[in-house]
């Protein structure tokens, strides 16, 4: 089956283009933007892990290794498209335009951190695995209903493919030709379970055949491959041709979350060893060097800018107003029921505890 779903690559491990057709398609600005966003979310990710270690935030979910998959896909979206991310896709959310401050607050258990962007349609990350795939189908169908050309993208992992909602969401999208891209990041593991115990199939892309929709297996460490595959799928969607399933093959460099110890279930040493070799950010750097568009000064500048941006956001996060217990009561219904009003009063009369 792997032969039917070969890994789509645009550049090889050394950062060299495999297909010269892309030489004209890829602009320098685009490459710089790719690099900038990957660097930005990587910096954020490293800060996230560090803040958790220092006890300054709660459990954090690192995505290192998946930067090309997240940035390449997010930058393929148009402004009015819909993004449905998981708990591991804050890289994609940030790249598409989510608010950095809020994306930090979230890790402090702050509901304010879930507040979606006012400019972009980015849903709060879905925690129950695969439940958001039907949402993406529905949001996309609503666009069709309204007669627009906007599309939706749903992010999900290899483990998510085992849930019923994965299947039901794609089936419905395929029946109604919903303009949606199902974007899978196959990072090899669902917490501890390797993908070969998650499924009997050799690829995730081939699951598209169950719905007679296109399935594509792309190198998730190759940002060009991800980007152009998602772009093509979005174009199909906008043309009314229905959904596409994309499998971006990638690697989760770190733990499942900061509460997880991957050495319990895999050879983490080995991953740490090969990490540099397969790193998607370094691969793009190699490309830039190979094609002579690497600019050390520019890299230093954006590195500093990003650091400053994130450090300031962390400061704002840490000095953010105290959590407000009323928030718990005030957003269940538009108008609180008497039960909720009574409960809210009782807590105010007893005094807040936290």
């Amino acid at each position, binding site marked *: 089956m792997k032969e039917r779903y070969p890994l789509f690559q645009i550049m090889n491990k050394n950062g060299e283009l495999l297909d010269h057709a892309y030489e004209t398609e890829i602009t320098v600005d685009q490459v710089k933007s790719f690099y900038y966003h990957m660097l930005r979310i990587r910096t954020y990710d490293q800060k996230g892990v560090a803040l958790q270690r220092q006890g300054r935030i709660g459990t954090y979910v690192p995505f290192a290794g998946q930067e090309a998959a997240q940035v390449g896909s997010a930058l393929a979206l148009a402004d009015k498209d819909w993004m449905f991310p998981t708990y591991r896709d804050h890289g994609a959310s940030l790249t598409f335009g989510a608010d950095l401050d809020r994306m930090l607050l979230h890790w402090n258990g702050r509901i304010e951190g879930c507040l979606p962007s006012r400019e972009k349609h980015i849903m709060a990350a879905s925690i129950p695995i695969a439940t*958001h795939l039907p949402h993406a*189908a529905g949001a996309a169908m*609503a666009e069709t209903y309204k007669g627009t050309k906007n599309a939706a993208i749903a992010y999900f992992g290899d483990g998510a493919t085992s849930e019923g*909602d994965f299947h039901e969401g794609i089936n419905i999208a395929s029946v109604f030709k919903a303009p949606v891209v199902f974007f899978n990041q196959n990072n090899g593991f669902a917490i501890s379970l390797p993908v070969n115990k998650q499924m009997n199939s050799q690829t995730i892309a081939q699951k598209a055949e169950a719905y007679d929709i296109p399935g594509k297996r792309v190198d998730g460490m190759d940002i060009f491959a991800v980007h152009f595959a998602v772009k093509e799928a979005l174009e199909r969607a906008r043309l009314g041709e229905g959904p596409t399933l994309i499998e971006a093959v990638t690697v989760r460099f770190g733990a499942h979350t900061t509460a997880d110890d991957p050495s319990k279930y895999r050879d983490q040493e080995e991953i740490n060893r090969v990490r540099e070799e397969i790193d998607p950010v370094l691969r793009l750097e190699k490309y830039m060097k190979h094609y002579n568009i690497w600019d050390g000064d520019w890299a230093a500048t954006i590195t500093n800018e990003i650091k400053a941006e994130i450090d300031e956001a962390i400061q704002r996060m840490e000095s953010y107003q105290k959590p407000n217990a009323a928030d718990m009561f005030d957003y*269940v219904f*538009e108008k609180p029921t008497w039960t909720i009003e009574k409960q809210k009063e009782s807590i105010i009369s007893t005094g807040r505890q936290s």
Partner: protein
Amino acid sequence: MVMSKELEKRSGVKTNSLTVIQAINNGLQTMLELDNDILLLGEDIGKNGGVFRATDGLQQKFGDHRVIDTPLSEAGFVGTAVGMALNGLKPVVEIQFLGFIYPALEQIATHVTRTRTRTLGHYHIPMVIRAPYGAGVRSPEIHSDSVEALFTHLPGIKVVCPSNAYDAKGLLIAAVEDPDPVLFLEPMRLYRGQREEVPMNAYRIELGKGKTLQAGEDVTILAWGAMLPIVEAAVEEMKQYQISCDVIDLRTLYPLDKEIIAGSVQKTGRVVIVHEGHETGGVGSEIISIINDTSFLFLKAPIEKVTGFDVPVPLFALENDYLPTKERVSKAIKQVYEF
């Protein structure tokens, strides 16, 4: 009969004599006409018009982009409706029988009910989930469940259950217009039993409000949906014993109408609650808790519940043994009266 032909003449609003199922059909049609953002989704609701004909004729009238036959996929289409709601539409989904809502429970418990909270009000889900419920029509297994209590416990969704055609339309319209999710339970057993004059315009019955069907002094009877005919028969029988009952149709199960409950209990001091859901953990226990909170000093006797049992709703040969009966309700009324 809330609206009479008499009233029709006076108000100028046309009324028709409709069954419950026709009133629901008419309510859906009324709303589809009023608001283009309203869509219907569900299994067999289009060409077939629904297995009970609740959506009869609506796909012909409004097209298959508004009245959508979905694949056999409750989690899938409830999830799809969540996505539509996020994107500004107002989906009304039909679960073919309440016993088939279970596969959608994750979507309901983690998204339908939580989206407003988890986005601090940025998104909300103005969805109605319609579901025929209850035993007594000789349905196959799982088709007769009455598990409203699972949903009254989930924060973020209202639960409504009409007992007659007039209320059915008025509550349905209020549910569709409510900016938050509503589970709308339809008593299958009453779908075609009686007709009432139903106004043809869009009228609303406020959610969260019960209704006194008969005023009485001795015993409060609290019930809803398909239990009311049984209750009314028992109450009729009680008249020979000079026991007069305050009969309340609660109509909304979350949030319960605390005022109407407390008002009646504080008058009578004696209460019988009737529902067909399982006894343990049923809405009846919640009502007892509300009475404990509001009316402790007024109670003259332990509250009696007449309910379905803690057993799976049996196949239809035994369904009448499962359901509350006039005899069981009468016995309970006498019991609290004589305590």
